[in-house]
């Protein structure tokens, strides 16, 4: 598919010139998007339209342009983007272009290039042979990298309305504690089932990402989440030290942060359980080994190891231990999370402000995202990113996970 933007000016509405140009595009086999129409406010004012034309082949696009130019369509002159070498490692040139989480193209050496991956708040670098463009975090830029600056030669595409007519299809990032949530959970389950069915051995096979906090364990969602993972519905897990520690504490001691999960009472010396758990895993060497050696026998971590879920554990300054897999350098943790994203087609962000926001910042707007938190501030924070396919649910994580698991066939 090739495209070209044209503009049309004049008394184009009541003279039917705009209608004629649009009809001509379609009759010749192209499609169009009216990206802007400004109608004159007084009768003598000129109106203005910007039309993006798409055609299956360059030849057909040329035919369309030839046909509409006599009616006043002006081919928008296109410029290459400007690039400037990075002045030092980790430093971007002044006026660097800051990315959004929408699909982006740059024009370089006369050609529009898709910018690989999509993430907000990064910069774009280009390479000449072969010509390619990719997004890069500020800290990863190397001295001399050619960084896109200014606004010329860059285009950002709005998301197309997805074909699916489910809760994500409305493309409205609403958050409310007063919305019925059953149909949302039903739609999430349908998406998860569809992704599971489409999975192959290809590394870019579709994936479901789950980012979660320790409240899942405290609140009683552990059993349901473990089942969901064990059934192969989750393929990437982002969490911190605490979710893993309390999950394994539950397995080893039957408590979460010292509270007996069955009786709901604190047990004597229970506050030490998570420390003893972390210490034990550190002694074994890794969560993976603890599961493989049969020390950890069930729960979220056990299911993840069993199902070969790609886990990224990111540390914080309040962590105890931490567990051996926890990445304590936050830039490295961010890199680890970023590397796990290709192929993610659905993201569930449950009961964790830190991991939900961090994950939300890394995801392209095109990935349907559900954010579940008992605190409305978290889904609101997410929806403020302008995610078009984000749904916020203000509810208890355990209720969400149990309901979701039941939709997927859990009998618990």
């Amino acid at each position, binding site marked *: 598919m090739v495209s070209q933007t044209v503009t049309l*000016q*004049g*008394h184009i509405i*009541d*003279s*039917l*010139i705009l*209608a*004629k140009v649009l009809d001509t595009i379609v009759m010749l086999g192209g499609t169009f998007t009216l990206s802007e129409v400004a109608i004159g406010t007084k*009768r*003598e004012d*000129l109106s203005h339209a910007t039309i993006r034309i798409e055609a299956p082949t360059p030849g057909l696009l040329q035919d369309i342009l030839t046909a509409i130019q*006599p*009616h*006043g369509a*002006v081919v928008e002159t296109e410029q290459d983007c400007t690039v400037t070498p990075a002045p030092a490692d980790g430093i971007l040139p002044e006026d660097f272009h800051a990315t959004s989480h929408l699909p982006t193209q740059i024009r370089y050496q006369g050609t529009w290039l898709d910018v690989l991956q999509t993430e907000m708040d990064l910069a774009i670098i280009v390479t000449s042979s072969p010509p390619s463009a990719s997004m890069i975090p500020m800290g990863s830029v190397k001295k001399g990298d050619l960084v896109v600056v200014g606004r010329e030669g860059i285009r950002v595409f709005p998301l197309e309305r997805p074909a699916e007519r489910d809760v994500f299809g409305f493309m409205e990032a609403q958050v409310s504690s007063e919305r019925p949530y059953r149909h949302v959970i039903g739609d999430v389950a349908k998406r998860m089932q569809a992704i599971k069915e489409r999975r192959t051995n290809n590394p870019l096979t579709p994936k479901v990402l789950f980012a979660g906090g320790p409240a899942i364990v405290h609140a009683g969602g552990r059993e349901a989440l473990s089942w969901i993972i064990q059934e192969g519905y989750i393929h990437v897990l982002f969490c911190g030290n605490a979710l893993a520690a309390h999950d394994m504490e539950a397995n080893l001691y039957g408590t979460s942060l010292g509270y007996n999960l069955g009786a709901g009472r604190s047990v004597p010396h229970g506050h030490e359980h998570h420390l003893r758990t972390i210490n034990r895993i550190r002694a074994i060497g890794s969560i993976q080994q603890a599961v493989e050696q049969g020390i950890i026998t069930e729960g979220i971590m056990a299911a993840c190891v069993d199902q070969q879920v790609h886990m990224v554990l990111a540390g914080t300054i309040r962590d105890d231990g931490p567990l051996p897999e926890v990445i304590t350098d936050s830039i490295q943790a961010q890199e680890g999370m970023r590397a796990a994203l290709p192929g993610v087609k659905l993201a569930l962000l449950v009961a964790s402000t830190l991991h939900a926001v961090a994950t939300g910042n890394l995801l392209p707007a095109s990935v349907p995202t559900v954010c579940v938190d008992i605190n409305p501030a978290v889904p609101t924070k997410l929806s403020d990113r302008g995610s078009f396919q984000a749904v916020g649910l203000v509810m208890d994580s355990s209720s969400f996970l149990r309901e979701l698991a039941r939709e997927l066939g859990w009998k618990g």
Partner: protein
Amino acid sequence: MSRLLMCPPDYYGIEYEINPWMRVSNQSNGNRARTQWQALTQVLEKEIGVKLEFMEPAPGLPDLVFTANAGVLHEGRAVPSRFRHPERQREERHFIDWFAEKGYEVISLDAEWDFEGAGDLLGFPEFWFGGYRQRSDIRAYDQLSTIFSKRILPVELVDQRFYHLDTCLCPLSGGGLLYFPHAFDAYAQKVIAAHVEQGKLFAVPSSESERFACNAVCVDRHVVLPTGCPETMAWLTQQGYIPHPVELDEFLKAGGSAKCLTLALD
């Protein structure tokens, strides 16, 4: 009193072929052309009471007689034509000089757009139609609309025989309009029909369109048109207009008639 600009046909003749009507082999008769042109001036001056002004004819410029193509004049401003054909581009200087001499503010269009004056731009007090595709570029109308603060509706001309808008469309006083629908594309036909009150729109029959019935001059209720257009005359009479047929066949050989031979001055 209405004022019109005309140019005596001293050097008029068919010296080149730039429209389907012109055949160098079908030469005009100089004497007959002068007689017909004078008859037109008589009708305009004596029967209708128009004030005529005349510009100096120039040797080697046979079409200077068609003053409608000089440019467009409105409220003291003149936008001179930029002719598509080199044969007529030599006329531009003469028209510009005349406008400047008469005290008009002369405003030139961007050089990249062709525009053939009142031959392609005509209409009602509220808005104008702009013919495009044959001789004038649609893009010229954006600029003209801004210069004159007028709404201009571009209409596409699709028949080479009706190469200027004034050969196939004639706005009349009181909101009436003569036109030959087949000279326009389907969109333009709709636009014209939508902008004229029903009953005031007359589709000239094909045989009379070829006589240039639409190339008429309307001054108040008077309409000067070529002879041989009985149906158009009957409709005009029925609508309360006073038709004045004038024999102008010598000018039809160049693709022009009453309207082409005059330029409204205001």
